[in-house]
């Protein structure tokens, strides 16, 4: 799926979406990007020079690219939320295993550690619930853009927080284990499919939408 400007003068409404197959003449792969995390998911530059595609490769209508991208992102964001919940849950599981192993046969240490684990569980559960809410709305055919953005933002923030806490809670064990990878992987969840700052713009617009009366009045004009 490649988005290209078809009418530069029209700005956002001048973007169209195309399905472009690999191997077409003029279509090459540029630099491969080495990243902090999600390293086995490759990120590359796509270079297109005089690539000819038939009109049937157009997805939707000309100029609808941005609309398609936005609708697709509504769906893609909960997927990032789900990735994040998985990362956070695994980090928590590893912490629990570590604590149980370290203190085998002894009483668990102080409340600071216990509460940290409790906080991680609270966040992971709340994150999963926010994801389920967004998906429930979608399955019911109801609007879910706001909830989709909320779940992406909250779940990825939770993943970052929980994996960071996990590394520090497990100390040198965290730093020399897979936990570090979970922390590195979590960072991109807050960045891609729209940074969490962009999500907050989306959410705040929904929150600050004109009250129903004003909206009705405007529609009446």
């Amino acid at each position, binding site marked *: 799926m490649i988005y290209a400007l078809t009418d530069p003068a029209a700005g956002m409404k001048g973007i169209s979406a195309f399905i472009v197959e690999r191997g077409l003449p003029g279509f090459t792969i540029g630099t491969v*990007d*080495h*990243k*902090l*995390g999600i390293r086995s998911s490759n990120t590359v530059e796509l270079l297109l020079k005089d690539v000819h595609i038939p009109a049937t490769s157009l997805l939707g209508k000309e100029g609808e690219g941005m609309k398609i991208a936005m609708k697709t992102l509504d769906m893609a964001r909960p997927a990032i939320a789900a990735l994040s919940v998985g990362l956070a849950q695994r980090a928590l599981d590893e912490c629990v295993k*570590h*604590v149980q192993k*370290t*203190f085998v046969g*002894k009483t668990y*240490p*102080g409340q*600071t*550690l216990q509460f940290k684990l409790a906080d991680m569980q609270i966040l992971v559960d709340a994150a999963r619930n926010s994801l389920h809410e967004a998906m429930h709305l979608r399955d019911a055919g109801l609007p879910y853009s706001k909830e989709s953005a909320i779940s992406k933002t909250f779940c990825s923030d939770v993943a*970052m927080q929980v994996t*960071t806490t996990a*590394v*520090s*809670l*497990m*100390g*040198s064990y*965290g*730093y*020399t284990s897979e*936990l*570090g*990878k979970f*922390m*590195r992987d979590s*960072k*991109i969840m*807050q*960045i*891609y499919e729209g*940074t*969490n*700052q962009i999500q*907050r713009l989306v959410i705040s617009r929904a929150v600050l939408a004109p009250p129903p009366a004003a909206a009705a009045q405007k529609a009446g004009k």
Partner: protein
Amino acid sequence: MNFELTEEQQLIGQSARDFAKEYLEPIAVELDHTGDFPKKAVNALAKHDFLGLLIPGDLGGAEAGFVSYVEVIENLSRYCAAVASIVNNHTIAAYAIQNWGTAEQKKKYLPGMAKGEILGGFAIFEHGPTPGVGADALVAIKQDVGYVLNGKKAFVRNAGEAGVYVVFATTDPALGALTAFLVEADAIGVKVGEKLETMGLKGCPVADITFENVVIPETAVLGAVNEGTAISAKALAVASVAEAAQTVGIGQAAVEHAAAYAKQRVQFGKPVATLQAIQTLLAEVATDCHLARLGLQNAALLIEEGKPFEVEAAMIKSFLVRLGSKMLLDTCQVEGGFGYSEFMPLPRMFRDIAGTNLLDAPGDFPEKLIAASIA
């Protein structure tokens, strides 16, 4: 209260900055990739007197004081935190010898440590919840020949490169009492395990060390017998202040990089630095960095003046366990998808800062000391 560094302290800090720019900046990326011990850089550190900063002048050190020392660590960390970590672990071993060693022990090790001929290591952690408790705890048994050590120390930094280790072993299991020993790397029965894969700070080696019937003379006891816990607590508190300087160095370099990036990255038709959300991220990191620096300088001054510093050291540690990693999480956020790429410097700093703010062991919480100190 005077927050101004003396001219000498500023000069030492600046010379560390110049050194880091010349010797560390060019190797930082490669070091992060290979993880090989940076021998050349360590030799250069020795040549420029950065390995004996706290060691008295008559023993070959620079005797620069702890405030200058943290200035050096912050400035080295701006360019390469892994090398700063090597210096920190070396210095903390030298600090222990300087503070608890006999005149003979000081004469034997400190001049060589100041010159960089002997690197120091500090071996306190074990795989059990606390030293002396686990199945492979390091135990020292007193015999006619001196002491015989058996067991394992975990996550020793500078492992395999150090010439002398400050090693803590259980000498009275009933009391749970530890004693500090000076163990030379070539003592028979000392085996450095495989270098551990770490998330960051690559180039500062970390490994477990196994002790198999290691015989050491009684003259190798550091400080009093069964007083090891007090020695390790104080040395680790000193180390945590230096580690705070490491964090601040990384954080400061990161926020300066992110601010410069935000000024040239254009979105919505203007540099992202003009957006409030970005300004907030940058401002919070800069604030945390500034406050952390004040806190650690305060603790450093107390250490330098020989005053009680443990609570202030615990406070800065607690502060940075909460906010240290956040400095990189937020600056990475400013640089977005581009900043996530390894051709940018923040990913390396992200991994390095996570390794600098670790709790030492589960159950070890600086907050305990702080809470007890509130009168």
